[in-house]
């Protein structure tokens, strides 16, 4: 681990979390997030993303390993960690009976912000996340996007140096998602806030993150910039679906000579083209020679899903399973 500095960094070494009667939700991960960086933590449900966030935000003690957030140890210096972080956890936890403004005033008070500053700070954040008009309405009537924006505003009340966002756009429509992405980007770009973002959306990690860590079954299986990870895979893949499902195996055999077969778990026949795009004409001829008719044929440039596929043998979509409940934690 690096020397202790009170920066906006996140340093993790050998972090482990075990659950009662269950597998290790997080199994010895190492990572380092630079100050001011947006770090995308990508993985399916049950991969260990939320458990990692709970540990880094001091809400769940690690079973083993070390982590420093903002230069403070998450186990020994919990209150100091909490003073420099903001978090919007999975499921926007809001009180449906309170208004947006009530929430911000409560949060500001609990964060120790002076009485004189509470009101203007609340208004500033309401303006910033576009909730000024809805500020005095009960949150029970807010849409999912509005709740998520309020959640983000609450995380920003005390001007944290580091923000944890646990699947902040899950369930949001594309408009709300884009608005939230813009705000997150702005936070890092203009305010120098370090952002640790978990997501199961490839596009989100691709668009937002400076670097991505891919987690599966509690292990980090790949880490780097989205561009570097995709370049590492390098070759495009062809996705083909026969008209007759019974022809699937024949299609697999016909395409086998042209590249590595990938099982994405989606039913498509997927081949990573050994010769790149130059191999495409041969693929088309092979399908024709085999007398197969295709319902769908698509060439895909390497994506983060290909990276996930290459590292885990599974596609990110549908790879998840429910993460163990926090209530099952072992002491």
């Amino acid at each position, binding site marked *: 681990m690096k020397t202790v500095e009170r920066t906006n960094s996140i340093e993790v070494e050998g972090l482990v979390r075990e659950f009662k009667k269950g597998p290790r939700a997080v199994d010895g991960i190492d990572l380092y997030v630079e100050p001011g960086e947006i770090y995308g933590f990508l993985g399916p449900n049950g991969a260990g993303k939320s458990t990692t966030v709970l540990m880094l*935000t*001091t*809400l*769940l*003690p690690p079973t083993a390993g070390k982590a420093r957030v903002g230069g403070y140890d*998450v*186990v*020994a210096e*919990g*209150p100091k*960690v*909490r*003073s420099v*972080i*903001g*978090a919007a*956890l999975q*499921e926007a*936890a*809001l*009180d449906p*009976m*309170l208004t947006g403004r*009530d929430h911000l*005033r*409560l*949060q500001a*008070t*609990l*964060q*120790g912000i002076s*009485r004189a500053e509470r009101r203007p700070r609340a208004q500033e954040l309401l303006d910033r996340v576009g909730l000024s008009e809805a500020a005095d309405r*009960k949150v029970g009537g807010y849409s999912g996007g509005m709740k998520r924006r309020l959640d983000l505003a*609450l995380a920003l009340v*005390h001007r944290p140096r580091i923000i944890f966002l646990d699947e902040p756009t899950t369930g949001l429509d594309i408009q709300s998602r884009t608005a939230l992405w813009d705000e997150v980007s702005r936070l890092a770009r203009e305010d120098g806030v370090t952002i640790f973002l978990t997501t199961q959306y490839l596009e989100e990690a691709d668009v937002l993150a400076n670097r991505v860590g891919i987690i599966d079954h509690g292990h980090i299986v790949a880490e780097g910039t989205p561009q570097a990870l995709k370049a590492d895979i390098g070759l495009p893949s062809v996705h083909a679906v026969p008209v007759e499902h019974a022809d699937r195996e024949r299609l697999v055999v016909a395409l086998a000579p042209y590249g590595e077969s990938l099982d994405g778990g989606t039913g498509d026949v997927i081949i990573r083209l050994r010769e790149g795009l130059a191999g495409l004409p041969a693929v088309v001829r092979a399908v024709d020679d085999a007398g197969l008719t295709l319902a769908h044929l698509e060439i895909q440039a390497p994506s983060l899903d290909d990276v996930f596929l290459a590292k885990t043998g599974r596609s990110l979509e549908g790879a998840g399973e429910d993460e163990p409940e926090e*209530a099952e*934690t072992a002491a």
Partner: protein
Amino acid sequence: MTAGVLWAQVAAVARRSVVRTSRQPAAVVFPLIFPMLLLLVNSGGLEASTNLPGFPTDSFVAFALAVPFIQGALFSTMNAGTDLARDIQTGFLNRLSLTSMRGTALIAGLLGGAVVLGLIQASFYVAVGLIIGVDFASGALGILVLFFFAAVISVSFGALGIFLALRTGSGEAIQGLFPLLFVFLFLSSMNTPRDLISVDWFRFVASINPVSYLIECVRSLIITGWDGRALGLGFGFAFLIGIVAITVATLALRQRLVRT
């Protein structure tokens, strides 16, 4: 953390309790109306009890007016408990845990909210009593003591609700326990003075039931005047329940808040 910040946190949590309750009409109206309906029904049916030799007053309404204060405290238990249990279930407690809020501020704030609501209920019961002609034997000062007692039992029963919420983390579990708390009320001297209960086992149970002494404390202020023994026992049990409940609630909070 300075005392000023801690106080501000307590006030903010208390304010939230009051605001969220006030925005749910059923949570406000039911604790006011239900005890009054029970009072009217019991008074109508049990008025003849006042003819029993040794019955302490000739007005059963005055005798029974003490009961709503305890029922109100039981509602405090349920409200404080279910509010906190909901916060646990929805993750709102995690949100609070991520702030610099201290655990004591959470408990004190929730109890502060329970006191405000308890005093509103007490004001309503006193007002109804005065309107229907109950003569408070201890006078205006007695009514003030009554309000103080209402605040104390709101804290005591509210802490009990907080403890139950922290232990179970379930609003349904709290609501399931509510009838059990009412059993304590029915097995007390709510309808008959203890020395006039003729069934031995019932008199014994009522005598070891702390709720009897809480009711008799309030009752003494309404129909007797200044009865030091009743006041001492009532406040004694109220404080004892409060101390025990706050202690176990604080311990349960430490277990619930696993933050480092």
